[in-house]
């Protein structure tokens, strides 16, 4: 097969890789992208998008089920609902398919050549791709490694049979009667809550003393409360030990050191994700690493000249929008523009019920900087729109410097707060002070008013509390 020579080669068409390729194409850079699976990566195929589809289906089902119980304060009563998970999954798959072809179309429009197959480095400038029709050699002036990440497997609980990762959980044909979730992080809770809403008996096994340990306890309290309402059992300080011999239960060592058996039809292991650094010839190019991740500088350059790395393979936070921003920047760097990483905030959303949103520094992180800080917290219980949505649990919290009122971080927990991420991100990126947020008119009645009120609260003159 004839060799391909190009200016830029992107390995992996996840959110980081395809954005990089599209932007490079826009800038007239001769670009090739290699992907073994369908375009869109984890995010589009087995992550963000499908999980949100499933979570939405579960939410709708739970709402109706709640109404059928005759307890809805809205006065709606319906018959008991049923769920055809196969159909819901098919609907989800159709969304994924549309987005797959959308990404492929965008790449084509940007004149990016897509090569399907598994890429392996031969040297720093040359990659071999195993395609259906043979080995394709690609030479490039610049290479972007965007190989992403994969679920971590526990050695004593390997994937297979009843033990599943998030990928399989998004493609089940029926709701498991009893679901054990190993790992109470955001993926485990998002999916655990969804399955509980669809009728599964869910138990979360978490080794740490609390769930969602990366967030502060004040922020996660409404989520923990909701877990109890949904009947999700949470075993804290408990360690998963393996599968029972029959394969119908999870062996657990509880916090007080006792061994117990947790009967389960499916065991979902969500103990984190690891960078994909194997199978594509990293050993051929010998890059500097930081732990398991590829070391990069503020232009996403690796230790080898001409090789960039973006996204999950470069470290935390493993978020699609971080990878996209990196990809865009690298494309511009390759096109000869002066760019480097200068972002102030990468907002993060956790689609639990209620949703969690963080941007910038938590109160603890802000305190650790040494200066005095101000915190303003406004509860949704005092927000009209939240009340009319039956979403009074939660709050918006603003963290700012006491001396010049510069906003350092913003967090929120509550129904639908994920959409506030745009405002939070913009405020931090623009270098807003408390007065800037307080001085911006926020439309009434919206949950966003809570953001303005939190800033006012930090300034000492909140109006509605």
């Amino acid at each position, binding site marked *: 097969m004839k060799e391909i020579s190009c200016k830029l080669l992107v390995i992996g068409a996840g959110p980081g890789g395809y954005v990089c390729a599209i932007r490079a194409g826009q800038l007239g850079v001769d670009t090739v992208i290699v992907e073994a699976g369908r375009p869109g990566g984890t995010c589009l195929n087995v992550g963000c998008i499908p999980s949100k589809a499933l979570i939405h289906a579960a939410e709708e089902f739970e709402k109706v089920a709640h109404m059928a119980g005759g307890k809805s304060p809205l006065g709606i009563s319906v018959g008991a609902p049923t769920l055809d998970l196969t159909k819901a999954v098919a609907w989800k798959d159709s969304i994924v398919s549309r987005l797959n072809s959308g990404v492929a179309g965008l790449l084509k429009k940007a004149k990016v050549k897509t090569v399907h197959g598994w890429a392996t480095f031969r040297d720093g400038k040359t990659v071999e791709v195993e395609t259906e029709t043979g080995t394709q050699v690609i030479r490039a002036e610049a290479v972007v490694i965007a190989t992403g990440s994969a679920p971590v497997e526990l050695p004593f609980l390997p994937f297979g049979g009843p033990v599943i990762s998030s990928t399989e959980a998004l493609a089940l044909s029926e709701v498991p009667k009893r679901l054990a979730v190993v790992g109470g992080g955001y993926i485990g809770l998002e999916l655990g809550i969804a399955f509980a809403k669809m009728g599964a008996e869910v138990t979360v096994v978490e080794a740490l003393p609390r769930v969602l340990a990366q967030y502060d306890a004040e922020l996660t309290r409404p989520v923990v409360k909701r877990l109890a309402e949904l009947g999700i059992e949470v075993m804290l300080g408990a360690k998963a030990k393996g599968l029972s011999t029959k394969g119908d239960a999870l062996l657990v060592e509880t916090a007080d050191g006792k061994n117990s058996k947790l009967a389960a039809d499916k065991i979902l292991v969500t103990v984190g994700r690891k960078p994909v650094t194997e199978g594509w010839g990293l050993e051929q190019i010998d890059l500097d690493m930081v732990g398991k991740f590829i070391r990069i500088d503020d232009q996403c350059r690796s230790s080898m000249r001409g090789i960039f790395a973006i996204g999950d393979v470069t470290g935390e936070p493993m978020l699609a929008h971080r990878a996209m921003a990196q990809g865009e920047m690298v494309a511009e760097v390759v096109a000869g523009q*002066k760019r480097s990483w200068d972002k102030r905030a990468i907002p993060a959303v956790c689609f639990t019920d209620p949703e969690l949103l963080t941007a910038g520094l938590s109160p603890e992180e802000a305190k650790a900087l040494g200066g005095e800080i101000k915190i303003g917290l406004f509860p949704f219980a005092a927000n009209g729109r939240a009340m009319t949505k039956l979403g009074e649990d939660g709050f918006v919290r603003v963290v700012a410097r006491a001396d*010049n009122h510069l906003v350092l971080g913003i967090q929120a927990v509550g129904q639908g707060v994920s959409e506030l991420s745009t405002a939070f991100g913009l405020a931090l990126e623009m*270098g807003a002070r408390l007065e800037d947020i307080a001085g911006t008119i926020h439309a009434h009645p919206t949950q966003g008013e809570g953001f303005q009120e939190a800033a006012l609260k930090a300034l000492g003159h909140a109006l509605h509390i």
Partner: protein
Amino acid sequence: MGEHIIKLPDVGEGVAEAELVEWHVKVGDLVREDTVLAAVMTDKATVEIPSPVDGEILWLGAEIGDTVAIGSPIVRLKVAGEGNVKPESSPAAETIKVEPPAKLATPKPEAATPAQKASPAAGEAKARPAPSPASPKSTTRSTVSGAPRAEGEKPLASPAIRLRAREAGIDLRQVAGSGPAGRISHEDIEAFLARGPQVARISGLARNDAVEDIKVIGLRRKIAEKMTLAKSRIPHITYVEEIDVTALEDLRAALNKEKRADRPKLTLLPFLMRAMVKSIADQPNLNALFDDEGGIIHQHGGVHIGIAAQTPSGLVVPVVKHAEARDIWECAAELNRLAEAAKSGTATRDELSGSTITITSLGAMGGVATTPVINHPEVAIIGVNKMMVRPVWDGTQFIPRKMMNLSSSFDHRVIDGWDAAVFVQRIKTLLETPALIFVD
């Protein structure tokens, strides 16, 4: 209890004023008789001022760097007994400072301009490093509400402004923000671009716009004045010649081998000094001081050779007096003694003045050629460059020889190029055939 005023004593013959270079005491200190209070510097020497009495320091009459007239009060002491002054007299009124002390109270923002470098205000800025008024950061302080950006903090600017800066090659850390909390606006960037150098920076290497004002005082000031005088008044002619010092080095090694208590170890300089003495015998016009204002050349009989020496505080020139009357070992001994005194700072004013011709040598750092600056009002200076083994063509082949250059400057107003060349050639002949140095 009474007060005792110490006036600046006469620190040298013909000296009318001296520069205060160091205070050893501060107000409130208790001092004993003979405690050193201060150091002042005259044309050449630094003199320590001891306390004549016991007492407590009440007042210091000058800032470091001030030029103080002989007889001016410099210290007031509280002493037991009557003292030497009536209590009601104001010592400040008696101060005869060359520069008005009023400047002390009002340090102006333009203190950093060269015109005011010598003012006491600038001296104060150096002693207690304060934010320089010229730095961009401080100009924003008045307009910022809340604390300004501290060192090492991320600059506060929107993504659009960061992009603008990136494309213009500006490091935003260098830009002062005029907005709230020090936020950088588009106007701030444009102002910075209009003001700053237009060269795009290579990222990673930070530009340093700091300016430190260092007051030129003491020896450094003397050197500066002297060099200005020499270079602005004397049209220099510099002549460089190479000397084959192989024979001289052999002789020197042989002489040094035979150790005798009365004979110090010889360096190359005593040979050069003796060679100069012999050359000056033929050309006495090289050993002279030129009073250009009076239009008189003082041609000296005695050859007083100044030896430029680097000391921890700067360049000084101890003088070997009457080299014509000293043999090679006496020259060496005197040289050693003076070098020691200059290094330890104990050389007297006498030992540091009165030269009629000068040698400058940087030893191993001597380089290939230099352009020595004449020690005004002398008319000649001999510069010694580094000795090194160089290949020399002897007519049939290259042979390794120990070679050394002499770079010598002359006052072209009174020394013609021809005379300069003859002088150096004579020294060359003497050094290349060192036996001639010992033949009278």
